[in-house]
């Protein structure tokens, strides 16, 4: 008789990993060095890929494997490499002081996580006791939290590159939501989205590069010529 994976176990694993992802995100909020935050992002993305794989395994949703692979390849491999290359080129390694100091930022991130749970709460249907619902309930909260914290990072950080990182981690949140809620979007859409993310990062990369060489500073809070 074939081995039937137990969804319950799967959920536990996934929830655990999701929590890990969240922790990483918060760690990224506190992180100063650019390169290390890139690394954190890579690990985070890798974990997401893993989550995707686990879901695919436990629910026999084969097409998610592709999503998982893509994630690992793109977000954990290619993009971090590109970004680090960029850092080399522009030659700025350290993030300067964020707008809001680190302890407070972390506190805020905690608050945002809470908000994520509050929002996710509104989706929870106790009457529907399928595994997916429970899973959705947990991971959605994490996803929203990821999203919000990523957003917060973008608001908070001064460097162009870290804003890009914020954007990427924010999209990780989306990815988590996508795979865990609905076991992935329709495949075409998935691929399209991945492609777009890739191009977006390339475009942003070009911009970062240009900004770097034009203003010889990556501090986007200095870009204030266009104003009323």
């Amino acid at each position: 008789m074939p081995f039937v994976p137990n969804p319950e176990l799967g959920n536990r694993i996934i929830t655990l990993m999701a929590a890990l992802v969240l922790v990483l995100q918060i760690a990224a909020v506190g992180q100063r060095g650019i390169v290390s935050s890139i690394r954190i992002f890579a690990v985070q993305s890798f974990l997401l890929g893993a989550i995707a794989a686990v879901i695919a395994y436990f629910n026999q949703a084969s097409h998610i494997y592709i999503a998982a692979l893509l994630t690992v390849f793109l977000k954990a491999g290619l993009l971090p490499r590109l970004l680090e290359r960029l850092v080399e080129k522009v030659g700025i390694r350290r993030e300067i002081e964020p707008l809001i100091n680190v302890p407070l930022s972390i506190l805020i991130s905690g608050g945002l996580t809470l908000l994520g749970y509050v929002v996710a709460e509104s989706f929870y249907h106790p009457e529907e006791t399928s595994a997916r619902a429970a899973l959705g309930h947990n991971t959605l909260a994490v996803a929203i939290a990821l999203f919000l914290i990523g957003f917060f990072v973008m608001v908070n950080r001064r460097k162009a590159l870290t804003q890009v990182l914020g954007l990427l981690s924010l999209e990780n949140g989306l990815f988590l939501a996508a795979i865990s809620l609905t076991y992935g979007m329709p495949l075409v859409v998935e691929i399209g989205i991945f492609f777009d993310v890739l191009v977006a990062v390339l475009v942003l990369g070009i911009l970062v590069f240009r900004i770097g060489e034009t203003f010889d500073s990556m501090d986007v809070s200095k870009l204030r010529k266009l104003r009323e």
Partner: protein
Amino acid sequence: MNMLSLSTGFALSVAAYAAGAFASLACWRRPALARRICCSAALAGAVLGGLTSVLGILRDTPVAWSVPSGIPLFAYSFSYDALAGFFNLALAIPVAAVSIYSFGYLKELEGKRNIGLFGFLFNLLLLSLTVVFTAANAFLFLIAWEVTALTAYGLVTFYHEDRETRRAGLLYVIMAHIDAGCLLLGFALLINSTGSAEFASFRPLAAVLNGGQQTAAFVLFFLGFAIKAGVIPFHIWLPAAHPVAPSNVSALLSGIVIKTGIYGMARIFLDVLGGVPSWAGLLVLIVGVVSAVLGVLYALMEHDLKRLLAYHSIENIGIILMGLGAALIFRVAGHPMLAAVALVAAMFHTLNHAIFKSLLFLGAGSVLHSTGTRNMEEMGGLIRPMPVTAFCFLIGAIAISGLPPLNGFVSEWLTYQTLLAGFGAISGLRRILFPLAGSMLALTGALAAACFVKAFGITFLALPRGAKSRNAHEAPRTMLIGMGWLTLACAALGLGVTWFLPAFDAMTEQLLGQRVSTHLVTAHGLVLSAGMPTSGTVSPLVIAVGLLVLMVPAALLVVLGVRRFGRKRGPVWDCGLPGLSEENEYTATAFSKALRMIFSVLYKPRREIQAVFDVSPYFPKEIHFESEIEPTFEKRLYAPLQEFIFRVSSRMRTIQAGSIHAYLAYIFVTLVLLLLFGVRK
């Protein structure tokens, strides 16, 4: 037959205007041709429109027809009833004069300005006015209304190189847009409650609307039309815009364009809404009184001839509103007869003002044309170089001062009678308002007379006050013909009023269900009576004849005396100074000095005198005198408002301070708030 000819006549006049507009625009490279096209098209349109309006005035039942429009949202539906006909007449008479006048007036602009553009805007203005008066559909009305405003704006800023002109034009078009906004809201309200934009569908409306809606509708429409009519306190654009326009345009603006406001009130309050609450009528009456008195008081302080005339437009609009307000009140109080008389008074004054104000502006135009200045202090003695203009202006002045036996007197007389009758007809303490309004009307009339003594005396009499007026010349013939035509109209409408009155019957019949001309005429059409038995009568014709007859013996006495004892021309008593010169002439500013001091509460006059003394402190070598009055409404009402708006705006601009973090933060906060909003059960 009649209705066919009517709609065709209307179509023809509209076509004439349209053709004139586009043809003159098309040949803007050939000014002379453009000028001829512009003026003759306008003339043709006016003649056709006038004839049509006669048909319309005499019809008892409105003619309605509808033209499919290219816009599926609505159709161009027209309704030509007596009211429309009357206003089209009030349009046609001055326009005929103005277009003849323009033949000569525009000649000097050839080569200097784009006459093709002028012709385009001018004819388009006339076209849109015609449509405003006949539109039977809210959309069409609003479109025509706004086209009127825009074309008028184009004409006002025709000399756009001048800064003052540009500012005046902007003020005008912005105020016009505000009133269009009010009308937009008002019509939206009506349309919402009936579901159709046709005026015809509004008719049963008074029943449909609840109290609040009625109040809202009245307020919105009143605001809209009052701004258009230049009623105080919404008048500030009028004395700014009318003077700076070319004079033939000023004539139309003051003569007929501001009357669209009056038309609107008559159309909406009497016809469409079928009556308004009586407090509304009282409001109209009071606003009218205020505009009349303040308008003439401000006019007295002007020594810019055209600004002076512009302020008199405000005054006369006030007088018209007195009649209209009375009509509204009577209608609610259930005195259709009185209401009809009041309406006749108001409408007749509308027509008269259209005529004599155009006449006066045309006169001012030819003065400006020959002296090149609007400042009365530089004029004087013009009656010798330009006698015909002077005569026409004098007639206009007598008419607008409401002096017998001309048309102004007749309509003011009717207004008086209406107000007096109001005292008897209305119950309660508020009826005291009517005689008081009457006395204020008297004050207005007397002040107007004073003002025009000044206007005519300083401009045309005595010695020239400057080189500009010293070598003035009479205006070209076409301009004189234009003025002469209006002069005739003034006299005819005054002396022949009793024969003109039946023209109001169809209108009062339709709006109030009363025909009054028979009540208003006694003694075989010789005498005008106030409608009520034994209430009061007057006969301009007899007065005129009587004056002439009584002057005969006086003339005989003088002639005999002169024949026997001779007459000679001698110098004026100059207190022994070496000859009378322009320096010791009386000035416009000096003329209004007494009133300026009496009403200083209102004017808050400011004057400064610097005297340069030479030898003795008694004989100053030269004196600089300047005096100005406070423009109360601009200073106390509009300037603060504008200032407030701009302060707020400048403060709000800081949200766009260029920081991307701020921008992201806006979105972030919005997101968080909306999430919380979204999850609340």
